[in-house]
Every structure is written in C-alpha cells, then in structure tokens.
C-alpha cells in the first residue's frame, strides 16, 4: 500500500470534488482564453465565424475535458501513463506514414472525423510518463547513470520523430518539458551543467567554423542565423516576418492603438497573424498595458502550479504539476521571446490564445490532470 492510498479516507468524493478544485487556476485559464477570443475577433476584421467562434467551441470542449479529467482520481492517470505514452508514440509513427501535410510538415492524422496532432499529445504524455517513472524509482537511484539514461531515451525517441516531420518548435518543447521533470525529480545538477556546457561548446563551434574547411552547417543555415541576429539586414526577404512583428509590437506604445485599430495586422504586414504571431496584434492594439497584463496572467498560472506542486506531498502529483506548468511556461515564453526577437523563429503558438484546436484542448486536459492531482492530494 503506497503512502498516498493510506490517506484515501480524507480525499473528497463524488460531486463535492467541485469545491476542492483549484478555482483561481480555472479563472486564470478562462481569462487568458478570453483574451484569445478577443484577438481572433480583431484579426478576422471583426467577424466571429472566421476564427473566434470555432475557437470558443473548442474552448468549451476543452474545459469539459478538464473537469472530467479532474474528477478521475490521480492514481488512475498515474497507472495509465505508460500506456498513454505508447499510444502517443504509435500515433507519432503513424503520422510519418499516413499523416496529412500541414504547413509543409507532416503533423496531422485523420481518424474518421477526428483530426489529431500526435505531437501535441506527446508533450503531455511524456511529462506523465516521466513523473510516473520518478514516482516509481527509489530516490537514491535518481542520479545513477543507468537510471538517467532511461528517461533521456524516453525523451529523445519522440523528439527525433518530431524532428523528422520536421517540427523544430515541438522538438524543443519536448526536450525542455522532459528536462524540466528530470530537474524537478532531483537528477544531479552535474548532468544539467554538462549538457549546457556541451550546447554552448556546440554553438561556439558552429559559429567559429563558418568559412573554414570544417564548416558545420550549410550556408543557408548560417544565413538564417544572420537573419535572427540582425533581421533588418534583409527586411524584405527572410527577416520580413520578424521585422514586421517587431514594428507592430513596438508601435503599440503604452496603451496601444485601440481595439481593432492596429494598422500593421490590418494591412496584412503580419504573417501568421492568427496563429504564432497573434501576440503582436495584442501588443499593437492594447500596448504595453495589454501585453504585460497577459504576461502576468500567464505568470499567475505558473505561480499557482508551483504552489500546488509544493503543497502536494505525493511525488507523482508534484512532478506532474510541475511538468504541465513547465510545458505551459515554455509555450508562452518561447512564443513571446520569438516575436520579440529574443529567439530565432520556431513554430510555437501562444498557448490558449493562438488559433488551433488540438493544442488548446490538450492543454486544457493537461490542466485537468493538475486539478486531479490537487483534488486527490494526500491530506
């Protein structure tokens, strides 16, 4: 009998679980999603049915999923972690063979009326499996090389599949999310230090080798790096997107140009204005006040996750909560850093705001796991 099950008596049952949900989190999520509806309405030129309305429907479905997931005891989710991961992995492989082509990369799988993006599913099931793994593993074995190698493999297998699609953004997210759970589980800092040192060495090597005989990348790849470092060098070519995004963002000023008054997105200077670059429209129309408020809403969600993880004494629950919160964090941090020119452009949407079905519904279901961990925590 595990530690958790010994304390079952005090866990709420039936409909009374509603009272024990983490309600501030629900409110914050709804606030973020509502910002999204507003922006989708605006970028569609004041029409609901283009993007805003489908997005609202998906939000309703996702919220329902969140409550259902939250009501199911957390130990059930722990027990199916491995199965869920394997299912996601099989779907990811299936997409290689039968996937539809979306935006130049194979990402979707059509199953009857359902269109699923297995890579989105993988982001969460990976975190679940790693949390379950460290829940199972003895604490003193956590940093032994062999027991570190296994979770690294668990992370890298789907990462390579996703890279083959090719979807760099999701690959980065998988490594970051998985690494975060390993970090939280207490894997020795030496490992992380070594990996970071290697990455720094690699970046250094790549940049230094340019123009020499042992050049590590192709010329066009170096060109992309140049574009990132100085987008204004090629404003009408490869740097066009990022230059336009920054102009829109910066021109927002303190309070913005006003709702539906953004000239940059209106005139179609902005690329992908309803998906990856939606933050620029928000920043242009609502200025620093709006953009910073959204950042604070996101930070609030993360704060609640960390708090819930710290107060929860069950190891699986804590790690899962940190993992989901961390994945969510990487979503918005990478997206914002990307549109503000702090990072190269990789395809990562702004969570709950960007237009996109699978990502939103899976994120909400993942927050259902966080809620379930919270409701069924040992008391």
């Amino acid at each position, binding site marked *: *009998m*595990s*530690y958790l099950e010994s304390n079952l008596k005090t866990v709420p049952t039936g409909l009374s679980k509603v009272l024990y949900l983490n309600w501030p989190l629900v409110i914050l999520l709804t606030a973020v999603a509502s910002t999204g509806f507003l922006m989708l309405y605006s970028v*569609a*030129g004041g*029409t609901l*049915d283009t993007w805003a309305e489908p997005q609202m429907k998906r939000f309703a479905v996702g919220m329902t999923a969140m409550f259902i997931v939250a009501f199911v005891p957390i130990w059930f989710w722990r027990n199916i972690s491995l199965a869920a991961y394997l299912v996601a992995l099989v779907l990811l492989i299936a997409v290689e063979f039968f996937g*539809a*082509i979306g935006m*130049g990369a194979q990402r979707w799988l059509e199953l009857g009326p359902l269109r699923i993006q297995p890579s989105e599913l993988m982001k969460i099931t990976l975190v679940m499996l790693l949390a379950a793994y460290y829940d199972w593993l*003895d*604490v003193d074995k956590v940093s032994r090389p062999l027991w570190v190698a296994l979770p690294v493999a668990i992370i890298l297998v789907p990462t390579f599949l996703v890279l083959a699609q090719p979807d760099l953004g999701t690959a980065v997210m998988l490594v970051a999310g998985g690494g*975060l759970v390993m*970090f*939280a*589980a*207490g894997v020795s800092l030496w490992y992380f230090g070594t990996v970071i040192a290697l990455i720094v060495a690699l970046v250094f090597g790549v940049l230094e080798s340019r123009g020499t005989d042992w050049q590590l990348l192709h010329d066009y790849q170096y060109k992309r790096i140049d574009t990132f470092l100085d987008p204004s060098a090629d404003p*009408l070519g490869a740097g*066009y997107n990022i230059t*336009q995004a*920054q*102009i*829109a*963002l*910066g*021109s*927002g*000023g*303190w309070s913005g140009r006003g709702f539906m008054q953004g*000239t*940059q997105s*209106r*005139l*179609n*200077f902005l690329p992908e204005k309803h998906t990856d670059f939606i933050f620029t429209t928000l*920043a242009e129309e609502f*200025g*620093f006040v709006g*953009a*910073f408020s959204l*950042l604070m809403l*996101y*930070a609030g969600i*993360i*704060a609640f996750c*960390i708090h819930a*993880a*710290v107060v929860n*004494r069950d*190891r699986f629950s*804590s*790690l899962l909560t*940190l993992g989901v919160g*961390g994945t969510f*964090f990487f979503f918005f*941090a990478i997206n*914002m*850093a990307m549109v*503000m020119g*702090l990072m190269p452009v990789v395809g990562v949407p702004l969570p709950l705001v960007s237009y996109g079905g699978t990502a939103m519904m899976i994120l909400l279901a993942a927050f259902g796991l966080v809620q379930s961990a919270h409701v069924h925590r040992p008391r």
Partner: protein
Amino acid sequence: MRRSPKDTAESSRKITRRALMLGGAQVAIVATLGLRMRRMQLEQADQYRMLAEGNSVKIRLIPPARGLIYDRNGILIAGNEQNYRVTFTRDDADDVDRVVTDLRRLIALSDADTAALLEDIRKRPPTTPITVADRLPWDDFSRVAVNAPALPGVTPEVGLSRIYPRGADFAHVVGYVGPVSDYDLSRIENPDPVLRIPKFQLGKLGVEAKFEDDLRGHAGQRRVEVNSAGREMRDLGRQEGEPGENLQLTIDYKLQNYALARLGEESAAAVVMDVTTGDILCCSSAPSFDPNLFVRGISVKDYKTLTEDDHRPLADKTVQGLYPPGSTYKMVTALAALKDGAITPETTVRCPGHLEVGGRRFHCWKRAGHGPVNLVKSLEQSCDVYYYDLAQRIGIEKMSEMAQILGLGTRPDLPMSAVAEGLAPTKAWKQERYGKDWLIGDTINASIGQGYVLASPMHLAVMTARIASGKAVEPRLVRARGGVEIPAREAPELPLDAAWLAQVRRGMSAVVNAERGTARSSRVVMAEWKMAGKTGTSQVRNITAAERARGVIRNDQLPWNRRDHALFVAYAPVDNPKYAISVIVEHGGGGSTAAAPIARDILLFALNGGVPPLDAYPSAQRGRIRTQHETLDLVDPDSVSSDVKTRV
C-alpha cells in the same frame, strides 16, 4: 511498501527545493520578457511608431505566364489570353453594400450573382481578394477602372488566362486548367505561394496536369508602396518571374482535327503512331468537349449534358477505354503459335464452321466454314476455327506472353490521365481475380480477342506498329520541352523471327488487298500508299444457342448499346511501313464496314499531309468520298497559322 514515510518526506523536500529553483528561473525569464516589452513598447515606441507609419512597402506576386503547348509543327494548341477581371477586398472597403450597389451600375451582375458575392465576402477572411467578375469585356472593365478611386476595395486587374483555340480537338490529350481549389492545395506538399493567388490556374487533367511543374513557371515579385488604406500608390521595383516551359507534342494538329471530324457523331477513337519513332501523331476520342468551358468554370447544365450523354464525351477512349480487341488479336495468337513451333505458316486447319471443345460448340463467324485454312488465309478471311485450333495447341500463357511482347496488357508510359493497363489474362490472374480455375473455353475465347482480353486503342496501335516495324517501339507524346528536342529512343528488335513477322504481314496485306479479304472495300489503289490491316468485331453480348438456331439477330436490328464494337488496325505503306493506326467505333457493327473506311481516310491523310487525293481510292468510291470530304468541318491549314499564332 517500497517507500518509507521518511523517504517520502525527504524526496518531498527535494522536490520543493527544485521547484523553488525552477520558480526562480521562471521569474527571471518572465522578468526578461517584461523588460523587453518595456524597452520596445515604452522606450523605443516612438521609433517603432515611425517605422509603422512609413511601413508602406508591400510585396505582391506576379503570376508567371503559363508555358504554351504546340503541335509537332509549331501550331499553337494551348495559349494564354488577356483576362480582365475585377476583385474586391473587404478590408479596404468602408461600406460593402454601398460599394457593391455602385459596382452594379457599372457592370452587369444578376441578383443571384450579387447574393452569392455578398455571401462570399462575408465568409472569406477580410484580406482575401474575391473575384467579382471574370472575363469582362474591355468596355465594362475600363468603366470600372476609371471609377476605381470612388470604389474602395475594388481592384481592376489584368491577368492571363488559358485558351484552347481548337479546344475540342485536343481536349482529351492536353486536358485543361482550372482555378486552384482547396483540395488541390491540400494535396501538394509545400505549395508554391503563387498557387494562393485567387483564381490562379492549375493543370487539372491530361498533359496540363502531368507537366504542371514545367508549365507553371516561377512567380516574380513586385514591391509597391501603399497608403494608409492599403491602396497601391506606386511601383518601387520588380523582379521578373520566369514563364513556364513550352511543350511541343508529337501530335499533328491538322491530322488530329481531321480525325475527330472524320469520327463524326460516332462514339469512337483513333490513334495514329509513327512505327519507327513511336510518335503519337493523332489521338482522337469522339465525341469530344470544349475544355474552355472548364477553364471558365463549367455551368451545372453544361456539365450535366456532358455526363449524361451515352456517348461519354468526357472519357478519353484512346487510352482509358478498354475493349475486347476481337479479331485484331489474331496476330497475337498466330505469332505465339509460330514462336512456340506449334505451327508453321504452311500448317493447314480445316474449318467446318465450328469446333467442339470440351462438349461445347464454338462457332466460326462464317457458318458454312472456310475449308482448309493456312496462316495467310486465316488472317485474310478472319477464320475463327483456325485460331481455336491454335489456342488448344499452345494454351493461354504463351498467348499472353506474346501479347506482352507486342505491348498489350502493360500500361503505356504516356503523360495522360488515367491511362489504362489493359489485360492479357493468365491462369494465375483468373485464380486471383475470381478464385476460379482457368477453363479451356476461356483460352478459345481469348484466341480471337474475346472473353477476358482487354485492350485500349492505344494498345492496339502499339501492337500494330510493332508488327509493322519488327521493333519494340514505345508510344511518345512529347517532342520537345522548353525548346529542347527530346530525341526518340532507338527501339530494340522484337524477339521474333523475321520470317514469322513477314508471314503475318502478308496475311494483313491480304485482308485489305486480296480478292476475298475482309476489308477489301477499304483498299488503297495508289501503289505507294497501299495499306495492310486487320478487321475486328467484338461482341458485347452473348449469343445463345437458341438465338443461333433461329438465326443471329443482325446488328442494325439491335438497340445501339447492344451492337458489336467495330475495330480496325492497319499500317501503311505496305512495303515500307510509316504509320500504324487503330480505330474503334463503339457499337458500330462490323469492323470492315464501320472502322476500316475511317482508318483508311485518316491513314491517307497522315501520309499525304492533308486531305487525301481521290486517286488513292478505288474508282467506284470516289464520288462518295468527294461528298464526304466536302461535308467535314476542317480547319483551314493557312488560317490556322495566322489566326492562332497571333494569340500569345
């Protein structure tokens, strides 16, 4: 059990420690993001605001001109014409209803069109230009262009659109283009951005579809300055695209035109092939349709007329239509038997008018029988019993092997849509397809091209060309690409003894030229163009024993779609073969009466390079041929060059 409470408490503390470290890192990153926001939006806001005001340079794509398609002599088959159209972008308009009302005063828009347009405007994203009117006459277009400043959101545009000057003649070979659909886009990996231009034309069928990547070309870019309302103010510079590559087909424009006219009202097909190079000079399927209808967007009514016609104008019968080849298959059986050594050309078989095999009676078309028959006579008079006998000696596998050698039962490698594979049946095939054993009766039927055997007119033309040349010629449709001539491949020799082929050719010559030949009435009397061929009549129904006893119902007393298919394959000149032809007339009756005269006319046209001279025909037929040629609707070869070439 495994985990002691102390262990858990310690691990919980560890997680808390790490969680706080994570939290700290996340706070730092959020702070960085916040500071970046502050820097960009507060400190540098003025600078970015200025950039935004001056942000007036937009990039527009210039659609490339689609590659042209020419016939073998450089006559235009598919060209481009100027297309005047008007588009509307909701984002640039202030009051949609007012603009549309004003627009209706300038160009004719029916109430239904207007309703559809408003619906389209409401549904599409606001920045997508929507086509209001396409193919406007110059007067309407110029009226809109003059008034454009008063119509925000309305853009008059000049583009290129595909035109097929003699559309119906080439509809099946060349196919047609149409506006890119969402379905098209979803099938292409990394679609070229040019495909997202509204109403951009994409090859949908035939050569247009198969050579899409070559014909399309590459888009150019235009940098334009726009004002704060998004309207173009001036051009800042342009980078020209590349027009698509031109294609030259092996088709002969005039021959193709003549063939379609000659096929007339029939549901029929004709293929002419050069026996040495494999060039397809003519590939006509009748009736045809006007591909220009599809380019403009075909109306439901027109489309219904095309799909409901029992002569199936949309199907390309030359490569998609599969038919039992009937007696035209006898050369296959004969060559198979010769190769096997089962017979020599002198072997005779007695034909009493029928043959009993396995308790079933197989009839010759001639009830009285042909008496003793050798190879040449069997072809000349198309004796069935001779081939029943051969089939029993060699079996189906040897026949189908020979069919493959002659190009039947394999998919011709042609850049056309839905090219059929045909069928040279084997025992294994029947077992797999129907789960039944091969019967001797199946072999008997196959020996005269009935039963399971299926071939398209293209197959039959290839077969005839191979017999005529003794070489394994492959059909070829494209002569030059992007101005570069594609050399014809040297065809390898067929693995057949020259003496056998000579005998089969003698038989085919007798079919047309001998006194008792089945196609004697279609002979050519000019010595240098004499033709050799083989008739075929393939049943589309079973004749029961009861009917045979009463007397077989004549074709002209049957409903059209129950009549026999008429086939004829031929090559000419006899001594030095140049062209091979196959003609099928669906439900046309006998091959000798319905198909052979058409084949002769087309073949003579090909040899003469124009309407055949009356001297080529037997004197008794010349009067009829003259009237026939006067009634055909042919393009004037001289007007072709001047009329068509002016369009670019």
